[in-house]
């Protein structure tokens, strides 16, 4: 097979006859082979992929220390537009699953990537997505070892949907167990809230605005490892993606049967994110994040965990935002900036801009 040289976004040779994805690319035949070889295998560049077996066979024993456990997670990504300030669906696809694993204390080992492509998607865009995934995977220290490609008819997909599954290793001695959550525990946020969702909003048709807001999509397993080293008895970790911190905190409160109190003045939000939320009438607590986590830690460990977080770029703006309480079980309550209290309800559906 010819060895092509793609330059940037120009139509890659052997796919020069197909600058856009066609149904045949999902057919399993020569076109699929070309796409997989020249887009995915070229970007992900992994011996397991190159072996082109139906499954990737891993030597797990070598990776799994005595007392260690395996963690598995999967995530699907559907985002419009595919490319936005600070990243792309490729970054989300890798970091999303890496972070799901990280919330259990796992170090990610390998990812799989399934693609559903829409007929008509420019191959150049697909190359950009694949390259973004490769870069994110390298940054996260994780390998993409298996994949699949299907194509749906024009109009039946948003360009590309990506599903990633990940396998990771939970080191011995790490047991993040929400059953241990108790009143007095401290709620920490690893950094500013609302960046990702507002970055998407800033390029959404009809709502677009100019700003310096960029998506915060990053892998968090390094941050988690540092946190666990500082305090092995961390109770819970959660990444506040869809539904924002409000959804994550409500889930935790319900799961653990406790009340949570947060202080509005402690919640870190970058000024342009706050401004964009003002204009569109959105609450930063309900806006998605892709490179942040919330942690429930025992009070005696909070200071050490915060110090460990702030030493790393991903935790530079880490701060305590509240605590677990015995009162109002399963409810999240916020102390407002003017000293009153209000419930932060579980969001219902997508938060929409309002005029009222």
């Amino acid at each position, binding site marked *: 097979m010819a060895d092509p040289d793609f330059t940037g976004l120009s139509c890659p040779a052997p796919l020069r006859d197909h600058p856009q994805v066609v149904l045949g690319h999902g057919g399993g035949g020569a076109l699929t082979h070309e796409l997989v070889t020249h887009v995915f295998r070229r970007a992900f560049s992994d011996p397991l992929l190159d072996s082109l077996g139906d499954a990737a066979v891993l030597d797990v024993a070598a990776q799994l220390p005595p007392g260690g456990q395996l963690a598995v997670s999967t995530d699907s990504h559907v985002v419009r537009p595919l490319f936005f300030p600070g990243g792309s669906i490729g970054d989300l696809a890798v970091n999303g699953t890496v972070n799901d694993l990280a919330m259990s204390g796992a170090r990610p080992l390998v990812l799989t990537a399934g693609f559903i492509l829409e007929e008509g998607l420019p191959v150049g865009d697909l190359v950009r997505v694949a390259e973004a995934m490769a870069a994110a995977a390298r940054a996260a220290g994780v390998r993409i070892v298996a994949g699949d490609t299907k194509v749906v008819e024009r109009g039946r997909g948003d360009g590309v949907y990506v599903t990633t599954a990940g396998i990771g290793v939970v080191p011995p001695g790490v047991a993040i167990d929400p059953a241990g959550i108790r009143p007095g525990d401290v709620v920490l946020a690893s950094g500013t809230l609302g960046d990702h969702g507002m970055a998407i909003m800033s390029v959404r*048709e*009809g*709502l677009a605005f100019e700003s310096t807001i960029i998506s915060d999509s990053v892998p968090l397993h390094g941050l988690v490892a540092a946190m666990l080293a500082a305090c092995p008895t961390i109770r819970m970790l959660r990444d506040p993606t869809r539904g924002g911190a409000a959804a994550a905190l409500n889930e935790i409160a319900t799961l653990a049967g406790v009340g949570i109190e947060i202080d509005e003045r402690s919640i870190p939000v970058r*000024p342009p994110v*706050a*401004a964009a939320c*003002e204009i*569109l*009438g959105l*609450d930063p607590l309900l806006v998605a994040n892709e490179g942040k986590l919330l942690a429930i830690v025992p009070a005696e460990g909070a200071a050490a965990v915060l110090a460990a977080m702030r030493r790393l770029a991903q935790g530079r703006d880490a701060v305590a935002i509240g605590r677990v309480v015995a009162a*109002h079980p399963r*409810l999240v*309550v916020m102390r*407002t*900036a*003017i*000293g*009153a*209290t*209000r*419930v932060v*309800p579980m969001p*219902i*559906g997508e938060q*929409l*801009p*309002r*005029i*009222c």
Partner: protein
Amino acid sequence: MKHLAEYRDADTAGRLAADIRLLVTRPWAIMEVCGGQTHSIIRNGIDQLLPAEVEMIHGPGCPVCVTPLEVIDRALEIAGRPDVLFCSFGDMLRVPGSRGDLFRVKAAGGDVRVVYSPLDAVRLAREHRDREVVFLAIGFETTAPASALAVKLARAEGLRNFSMLVSHVLVPPAIAAIMRSPGTRVDAFLAAGHVCSVMGTRQYAPLAARLRVPIVVTGFEPLDLLVGIRAAVAQLEAGRHELENAFPRAVTERGNEPAQAVIAEVFAPVDRAWRGIGTIPGSGWRLSDAYREFDAEARFGVADIATAESALCRSGEVLKGAIKPRQCPAFGRECTPRTPLGATMVSSEGACAAHYHYGRIHG
């Protein structure tokens, strides 16, 4: 953000609340008209700072609450048509009509788009000449200038594929209707600040005198609201009932005259049905005869869609402050934020929705 952040200071809020506490000698019920004010009161917990004697009654001030059920049904009918590109503010997407909402129309294949401004709808009409682009024009007088200019722009550019489903509503007739309604407990009003940025304050002085209620034009930030409430309480304690402007940085007596002129050209008064209150004469705006060609109701032949509110719903009484949400038998049972029966539960600002969420900790 300048001209916003300064009005959120906690210490000053506490002092204003203390001042109100010193002023008050008997119970008063104050209604804030605008949904944005209700949102701010609930979101910041402003009512918790007030002495027990001062009760805030949440008025019918959000587009969700006041848009008649039949307008929603007409919107759903139009949005479901294959040749239509339907544009709406985000607020309206989850408002239930008789059968579903705009979200569900979208799920069923309707082209429904959230826009930030009516100008976005005009742009879509420009870009999609082969589609019928319809804009759902709801809101108080604050939003009418935007709708009006959008229609003028569409005319100037010859965008014959553009039309609007209009359901604008007016504050002064609503205040009058609430005060005249039997069982009302409202003693004073906080008039909607941004509505008055457009319309000025002139309509309110005779209203205050005739209805014998203080009307205080008030802003939206915590300090603005507390200043407005304090002014209303001071008037009530002194037995006065006047118009007062507590939002001078954004409101003048005459308002925005260029905006008023365009409104007068594009819109004409009409009787409007308000969810939970009923028909209030002259309380709405429709497209004027000169701009009728842009009226989506006529263009799509939906004017005869008429629907009835749920018989269980008592939001009208809640809106006037005659009953509390918990006194409605359907509250929390047939009627919840996920399965709302009427205006006051549909929107997160509605008194019933607010009570549902926040009443759990405040009893």
